[in-house]
């Protein structure tokens, strides 16, 4: 926010003086907010970088760094994932001028952070020399214009997790196309009325966008200085009406995923499969340990088997937040964290997703048989899935709004039995309005 006129200043100073004068001595926090000064580290100076992340197992990688770098220590703070916790906190800290040096920022959120001037352009610290270490399309997620604002960490190529034992019990083959998926869903309902092939998460915008992404939709683009929004496209409508049909016929269960109720159904085998990203493996192994050995993974069902395609759900970067006193060291850590072989191996064990580091699959912890998935090298599925993703997908700065609108519109459509297609049209309209409300330009037509 830009500084305001004098009268407000005086008012504020008065209030501040009042507040500060009465603040009990010794009650203020020990680290005073730093102005965005980037004095940098003096040679030999011991510094500590603050790092906010929610990735499971990342603490081990941080420990490894700390054991090797006594002078540049990283202090990890675990935060609630995404817009339910981490981002509000980061935005607030950015406003307050005391953000952590490093933050976990998902790809779809990078534009929103840029809009708030929350990220450091890392090209001034030589990040371009590192470009070759990363998968190109993930690298692109953090590149805007001539700047690079994030160190890619991992993505979420999609696949289908399914319970081999349950499918066998139901006498149903795991589907390979969306048409088969519907048939299988119907057969499962017939075989066991208490079970469903899967749940439909009405409020998960990320999941739904991945579904549209696979079908060939491309929601956002930039033309000159203008945004182009094409959420309401034939591809998105195809996906929407497909799921609408499944829900109407009571073939899938509309409920939030990755929540206590859902976990208890996954554990109890009341849900047969989960079309989800590679990082879903950690969620399943962590929350349904009692089902070990009963799972398998395959490609997500296809719209057209002749033209196989996949998509991406989530994925995130390590970004240096604007206000860090030691951006150079922070970048050094971020590069190490996401490319060092030992570090990446630790992150893989924690289940951080699909590595953004090049050639991290072969020979890594990913490339091993897993007992949880029936002894299969299940990540081969995701390696292939990764090849089938349309890599030109872009994100807008108001994506949280779009996700919320999507959740609301679809929830309402389910409750009121109205068309999902109309819901998509609504979201399109709302998204355009969101961008304009942010003072951004949107190309119409």
């Amino acid at each position: 926010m830009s500084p305001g006129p004098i009268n407000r200043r005086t008012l504020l100073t008065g209030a501040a003086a009042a507040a500060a004068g009465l603040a009990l001595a010794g009650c203020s926090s020990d680290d005073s907010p730093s102005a965005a000064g980037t004095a940098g580290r003096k040679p030999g100076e011991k510094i500590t970088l603050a790092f906010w992340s929610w990735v499971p197992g990342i603490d081990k990688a941080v420990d490894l760094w700390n054991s090797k770098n006594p002078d540049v220590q990283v202090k990890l703070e675990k935060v609630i994932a995404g817009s339910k916790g981490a981002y509000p906190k980061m935005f607030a800290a950015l406003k307050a001028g005391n953000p952590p040096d490093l933050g976990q920022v998902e790809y779809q959120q990078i534009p929103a952070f840029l809009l708030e001037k929350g990220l450091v352009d890392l090209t001034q610290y030589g990040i371009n020399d590192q470009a070759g270490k990363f998968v190109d399309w993930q690298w692109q997620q953090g590149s805007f214009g001539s700047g690079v604002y994030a160190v890619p960490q991992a993505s979420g190529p999609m696949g289908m997790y399914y319970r081999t034992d349950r499918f066998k019990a139901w006498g149903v083959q795991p589907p390979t196309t969306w048409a088969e998926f519907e048939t299988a869903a119907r057969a499962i309902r017939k075989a066991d009325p208490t079970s469903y092939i899967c749940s439909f998460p009405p409020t998960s915008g990320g999941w739904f966008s991945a579904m549209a992404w696979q079908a060939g939709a491309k929601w956002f683009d930039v033309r000159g200085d203008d945004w182009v929004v094409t959420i309401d496209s034939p591809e998105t409508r195809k996906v929407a009406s497909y799921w609408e049909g499944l829900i109407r016929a009571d073939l899938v269960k509309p409920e939030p995923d990755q929540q206590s109720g859902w976990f208890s159904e996954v554990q109890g085998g009341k849900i047969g499969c989960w079309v989800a990203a590679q990082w879903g493996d950690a969620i399943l192994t962590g929350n349904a340990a009692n089902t070990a050995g009963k799972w398998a993974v395959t490609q997500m069902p296809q719209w057209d088997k002749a033209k196989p395609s996949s998509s991406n759900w989530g994925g995130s970067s390590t970004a240096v937040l604007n206000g860090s006193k030691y951006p150079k060291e922070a970048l050094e850590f971020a590069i190490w964290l996401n490319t060092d072989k030992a570090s990446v191996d630790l992150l893989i064990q924690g289940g951080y997703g699909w590595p953004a580091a090049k050639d991290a699959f072969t020979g890594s912890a990913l490339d091993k048989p897993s007992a949880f998935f029936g002894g299969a090298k299940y990540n081969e599925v995701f390696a292939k899935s990764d090849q089938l993703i349309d890599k030109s997908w872009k994100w807008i700065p108001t994506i949280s709004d779009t996700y919320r609108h999507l959740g609301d519109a679809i929830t309402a459509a389910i409750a009121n039995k109205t068309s999902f297609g109309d819901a998509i049209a609504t979201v399109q309209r709302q998204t355009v309005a969101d961008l304009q409300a942010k003072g951004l330009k949107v190309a119409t037509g």
Partner: protein
Amino acid sequence: MRRHRNLAVLALLGPFCLLFAGCFLAPIGYAIYQSLLKVERSGPLGLGGDKSVFAGFANYSAALRDSEFTGSVLRVLLFGVVQVPLMIVLSVVLALLLESASARWVPFFRSAFFLPHGVPGVIASILWGFLYVPGISPIVRLLDGAGLQVDFLSSGTVLWSIANIVTWQFAGYNMLIVISQLKAVPIELYEAARIDGTNAWQLARYLKLPMARPAIVLTTVFSIIGTLQLFSEPLVLRPLTVAINDTYTPNLNAYTQAFVNNSYNLAAAEAVLLALVACLLSFGFLRLVGRQGDE
């Protein structure tokens, strides 16, 4: 002497007034100021720079035209219209029962009813959340066993599930305030009524209830204000259900606008509108009961 008194007033009243100005007046003024600005940007990611400019009442009209915001206000109003009277009636009934001559084990019951007030709203919500989620909730399981299929978290029921959490937390507290009011009634009044042959029902209806009136007014005003502030309950229950979104209540809406969407100006306008509604309702209610009291 006079000057001494004035200095004393300054010393006694000054510190509070200073803090009050800093924590109440200044934020209100600042919110009003912020609500009149908007941000203009250039370039698709605002990398071309941005500036705050005067926007008039644009944020207010945006908030009022935003169906999510108006919807959230209407939602808490509906909530208040149902939950506040229900809770107050429950509190008064419990107070009258405990204060009736027929009650036994009064200290135990009073403590049991008051106990939940020691549970903070977020923790109460976490707790009830477990009792609402199908598959975990023993209550859902019991009802299921009795042939009742209840979904506490559906879009039709979740508002009342929240109402239950609030009632659970505050009914006993409001009851205690009513009881304290009843205790202030001189005992002779009860004795006189008893000698006149008044029965327990009449005693409660025509003597105790009018006596408890000030306490009922006070608790009602606080409940109205509390209703408009609904935040932590929907925040905690949100992940468990599709029926609650980030803009479910006005407070949640303003929080989302400010901290998730970084639309501070809009959030400020919403905060100002919310404070206005709260003041209008509370004053309106006080005026209403004040007028009735005069008759």
